[in-house]
């Protein structure tokens, strides 16, 4: 592989990693904070992508979708958490069953909605980012560079919020000891609902940003769910840094895996996950041990 090509592939890998970060950050937040494995996360991502499709069709603007979709998914999260998940605290299997139920309903509705449907759809990138630019003598799509910039900006601002803001302090405290936080007079019910809404909004945001790159099709929900699970297991559960490191590792690994061993590309990232778990049972940056 020539150095130029390797560089472009590295850009592809980083851009995929940026997508994975947006996707996995929400899952990690919900798990770390609420101890809920939200198997509807992939369905939220898918719903986000399809809502973006409709918003772009009606308003003609990708940027409106980029704002509207997270708000819509956040609102959905604010309904789902108090209604279904609140009473299931600590009951993991019930949480799994109920989030799978939610995911089934969402994907079925997407399938049945005539202008969303069961076929592959594409969402073009916004006009401003539609073309490609020359990098080292090759054409490279501008939109992918935008994805990198967007992902990095989001990671930095989330990290800043997480460390510096009051909401971030509450969330960190909730991850450490939600019961104590509640005893200190914080309304943890509200905090959990908001956390879940933020997680759902991030999944929706990932759906919008990913749609012009990965397209929209049935099964994208499962793919997204599994990839984000791998990212958080590799990076470490319950920390924002874990999602960052996991995405930074899994994105490029997947891309280069597809280049070097196209037949077994998917295999490759699972091998990495197994290796990380063997050497560091809590993930690269996590504090929760996954295996003993």
């Amino acid at each position, binding site marked *: 592989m020539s150095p130029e090509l390797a560089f472009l592939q590295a850009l592809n890998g980083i851009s995929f990693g940026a997508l994975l970060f947006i996707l996995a950050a929400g899952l990690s937040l919900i798990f770390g904070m609420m101890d809920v494995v939200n198997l509807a996360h992939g369905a939220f991502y898918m719903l986000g992508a399809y809502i973006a499709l409709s918003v772009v069709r009606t308003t003609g603007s990708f940027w409106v979708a980029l704002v509207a979709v997270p708000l819509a998914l956040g609102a959905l999260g604010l309904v789902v958490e108090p209604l279904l998940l609140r009473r299931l605290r600590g009951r993991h299997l019930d949480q799994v*069953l109920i989030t799978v139920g939610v995911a089934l309903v969402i994907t079925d509705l997407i399938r049945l909605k005539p202008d969303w449907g069961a076929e592959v759809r594409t969402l073009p990138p916004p006009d401003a980012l539609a073309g490609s630019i020359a990098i080292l003598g090759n054409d490279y799509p501008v939109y992918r560079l935008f994805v990198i910039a967007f992902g990095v900006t989001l990671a930095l601002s989330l990290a800043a919020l997480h460390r510096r803001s009051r909401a971030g302090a509450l969330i960190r405290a909730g991850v450490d000891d939600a019961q104590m936080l509640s005893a200190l007079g914080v309304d943890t019910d509200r905090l959990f609902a908001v956390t879940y809404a933020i997680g759902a909004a991030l999944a929706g945001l990932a759906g919008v940003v990913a749609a012009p790159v990965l397209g929209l099709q049935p099964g994208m929900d499962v793919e997204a769910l599994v990839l984000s699970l791998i990212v958080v297991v590799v990076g470490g559960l319950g920390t924002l840094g874990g999602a960052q490191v996991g995405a930074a590792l899994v994105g490029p690994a997947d891309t280069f895996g597809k280049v070097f061993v196209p037949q*077994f590309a998917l295999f490759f990232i699972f091998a990495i*996950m197994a290796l990380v778990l063997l050497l560091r049972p809590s993930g690269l940056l996590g504090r929760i041990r996954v295996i003993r």
Partner: protein
Amino acid sequence: MSRIAGLRPRVGGLRPRAPGFVALGLGALALVTFPYWSRDWESSRYATTVLRDILVFAILALSLDLLMGYVGLPSLGHAAFFGAGAYAAAIASQRLETEALFVTLPAGVLVATLLALGIGLFAVRASGIFFLMLTLAFAQMVFSFAFQATDITGGSNGFAGVRRPELFGISFSAAEELYVLVAVSFLATAFVLWRITRSPYGRTLVAIRENERRMRALGYDTRAIKLSAFALAGALAGLAGALSAYSLRFVSANDAGIGTSITAFVMVLIGGAGTLAGPAVGAAVVILIERVLNSYIPFSQTVLGVVFVVFVLAARQGVVGAARTAWARARG
């Protein structure tokens, strides 16, 4: 994290006395001979197909219940072994150009067992929700292998034209005979699991679920015991997979995919984990909604999703658990 909410020990629940045994035997006989005594019905063939598929999935759900209900290991990747068994039986039949049941069925079971040993080596080191995530991820690895290794598995097109088996001159190619094979396999699986869960080994599994640390302190190699249960469950899932390949004459990568894993998982939870009847009841509920309701209304998947939600909120112990509670209350 050592105990998973929602599962309660239920050892020695079913203890049929003599009349019970007779009723059970008659019921089993009626089940196995269903396509013959229902022959005059208008929808006999359709009912036989649906019942056959229910029984195939009941075997899968029973095998998963050994992990979920008894050892307390909630696997969300059990379809990996189902798919492995299906592919192995189909490929063995194709490559060895044989229809012999005693070649293709053991091939399916063996490959599934070996795969379960390999994945279990990692997975049983985790517990609870982490076990769930690991099994899901590993199963997806098996799925992606099946999906991408086109020259072995047929890839995204699936593996078509699986030959139905024969045993010592008895052919299982007709729908009735194949149904009998599936029904007998189901009864055999249920019997084996019934014996196992009541054996000292079965009690050890329940004890590990309840307090693994104490069992370790007592000198049990809990990791090895959990691995053995994982492999056993994998073997039975492989059996179900091979039967599915014979039944449908087709293996799809989705057989090893997360959809199938989730299906088996909810069958166990809906029917009632830690019981033997539960997973079979769960299999019937889910297959009836997916297959039968689906031919009447377009949104059967939505109904299934709502059923999950309602079950979690209203009937936590599953159908069988709820029925037991009602029975106990009725008797005072």
